[in-house]
């Protein structure tokens, strides 16, 4: 009896581990960590968006409610950025998915040299955005760019083209660069998905008379649906939030022709030191992404799988 009354803390912990509360105790450190590194900054971002926070005018700082959101409605650059964000993300994702799919199918054939090509295809993704941006700025340079040189030599162009200086081509040029940089992400995930599709399904379909197109439509796409959905959501989030490639290639110009929301928020915060308005822009991006992800998951019905 005495030994039971004077049991040590370790023994008590042992007893606790036998109860259903043990699992909450194990989750507690992770929960604290998540609150600190995810919930707090997110909430702080919301708080900043309803405050005036201009580093260079500290006297104005304070609670302003929805002022920034109201100002956004009449902000010409905001609407241009919103439109450009939609174009930039949609076009880049479409290209990346298409290129990634082709690359994944090619790599899935297990022909000699596949491993080497696999590494080569992944190379663009290994490059940091800033490095990729500077590299492409040189490749497309209107004076020294090798791409201009090739296009002139094969007579597609009559003279070197300043791709990033013309509003008609600047956005398209940046989308091509982004697609080149981002397609390995899809290739990698699609390849993993393709490897998981049992070969028997294709054999059975072939016996039933299905050609390659029907096999692709009725087996490959449905089997990859979860992977496609997850990859597209992750990539959309990444593209909407990453201004670095555009910052290097065009800085949002010429004349806001390639201005996107993330770049606008970045420039508002770090050029104008207006963290309140930049915070409101970030909240709008957050809401857009949440709505997009929810709708996209519902439309693809992937959660039912």
């Amino acid at each position, binding site marked *: 009896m005495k030994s039971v009354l004077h049991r040590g803390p370790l023994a008590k912990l042992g007893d606790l581990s036998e109860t259903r509360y043990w699992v909450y105790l194990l989750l507690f450190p992770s929960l604290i960590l998540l609150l600190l590194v995810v919930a707090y900054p997110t909430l702080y971002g919301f708080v900043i968006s309803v405050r005036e926070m201009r*580093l*260079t*005018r*500290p006297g104005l700082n304070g609670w302003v409610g929805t002022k920034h959101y109201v100002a956004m409605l009449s902000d010409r650059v905001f609407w241009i950025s919103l439109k450009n964000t939609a174009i930039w993300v949609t076009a880049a994702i479409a290209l990346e998915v298409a290129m990634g799919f082709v690359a994944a199918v090619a790599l899935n054939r297990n022909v000699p040299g596949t491993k080497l090509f696999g590494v080569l295809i992944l190379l663009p993704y290994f490059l940091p955005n800033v490095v990729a941006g500077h590299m492409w700025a040189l490749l497309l*340079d*209107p*004076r*020294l760019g090798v791409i201009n040189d090739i296009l002139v030599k094969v007579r597609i162009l009559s003279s070197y083209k*300043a791709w*990033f*200086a*013309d*509003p008609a081509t*600047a956005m398209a040029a940046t989308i091509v660069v982004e697609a080149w940089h981002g397609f390995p992400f899809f290739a990698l995930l699609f390849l993993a998905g393709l490897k998981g599709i049992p070969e028997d399904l294709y054999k059975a379909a072939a016996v039933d008379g299905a050609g390659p197109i029907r096999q692709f439509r009725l087996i490959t796409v449905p089997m990859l649906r979860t992977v496609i959905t997850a990859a597209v959501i992750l990539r959309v989030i990444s593209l909407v939030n990453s201004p670095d490639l555009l910052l290097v290639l*065009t*800085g*949002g*110009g*010429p*004349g*806001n*022709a390639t*201005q996107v929301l993330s770049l606008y928020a970045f*420039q*508002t*915060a*770090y*050029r*104008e*030191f*207006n*963290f309140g308005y930049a915070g409101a822009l970030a909240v709008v991006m957050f809401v857009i992404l949440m709505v997009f992800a929810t709708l996209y998951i519902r439309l693809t019905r992937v959660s039912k799988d």
Partner: protein
Amino acid sequence: MQVTKREFLVATAALALASGMRSAQAATAINYWHHFASQSEMAGLMKIIELFGKSHPGIGVTQESIPNSEYMAKVSSAVVAGGRPDTGMVVAERFADLTAMGALVDISERVKGWKGKANFPENRWTGMSQDGAIYAVPAYAFVDWMYYRKDYFEEAGLAGPPKTFDEFLIACRKLTNPAKGRYAFGMRGGAGAFKYVIDVMEAFGSPIVKDGQAAIDKAAAVEAITFYSNLFVKEKVVPPSAPNDSYRQIMEGFRTGQTAMVWHHTGSLIEISAALKAGEQFSTAPMPAGPKAHIARVAYAGNGIMKDDHVDAAWDWISFWGEKDAAIALLEATGYFPASTAALDDERIKSNPIYQAASQTLDFGRLPNRFVGAAGWSESVVNPSFQSVLTGQLTPEQAVDRMIEGLEAALR
């Protein structure tokens, strides 16, 4: 070799003691944020650190290079979140924003008692002062001037560099030959374009800010933007890539012979001299004068103290930059013009004809516009508005309207 447990403990304790002593010595270690990035700039900085180390053996300086475009982002983040450096580089264009956000420590009292102060005339301190308080010690100056291809000018039968905007336009027409891939002027229309847009506006008689209020004279500004943008839109004397050309592109254009003239400052002399022969292929001249004013900027840059943890060591470091040896070391490595009159009297400057244009500019050059929000307005409003004129999306009138509207918002 076998080590006993006792020996191991003694050795560990000795190491811990030694590291503690090193930490104690490192109390005079200071860090320094700057935006020097090129090989020549880094060579100059390393030479200054070496000279400082010899004259101040008790102070260690750890330098951190931050890309120029990210410098203010990093400093403002440090101000908000903590983690300021002991000292940092301060350029005139950013001074107002840096003091407004409280990033700099008032050093007025130290400057008053500094023997080197006599080498810095009052205009050097103007760009580093706010409401009578001094926040940085000037170190070097960026003096605006024009680089021109002497050989192209001779080939075109031009007697010399243009002295006025009218002469500039005539020279532009004569020097341009698209068939040869040659354009007269390397216009900066991308990042940093605002600098010359504002200069041309002032040269046509439009002020920017007066007594803290927006003071753009619309008629003069429209005339200025029309003249400047027409070099691209109508005259076609600048490369077609101008709307996206920033520093790298205009320098490449000049170095590779695509352009015959380029506006920049003394800071790019070393880079251009490495590609072209000074005095034969290229030379320098003061900026051409506009119809109403002769504008060229003389932007003093210096160093300030950003936190007062090691304020004595920090002061020794930033004031060392103002001494002649440090200024000459930087000049030799980078071509950056000294702010100190003692260094300006050096024979290497006085006897070099290429520097004459900079010396002349010092007589009439103006400090850059200084007002809180200047950097944000310049980059976020002036740049895209001017680019839009170049690309035909806006008329000069519309662009000036946007600049006025943006300036008023920035000053609010």
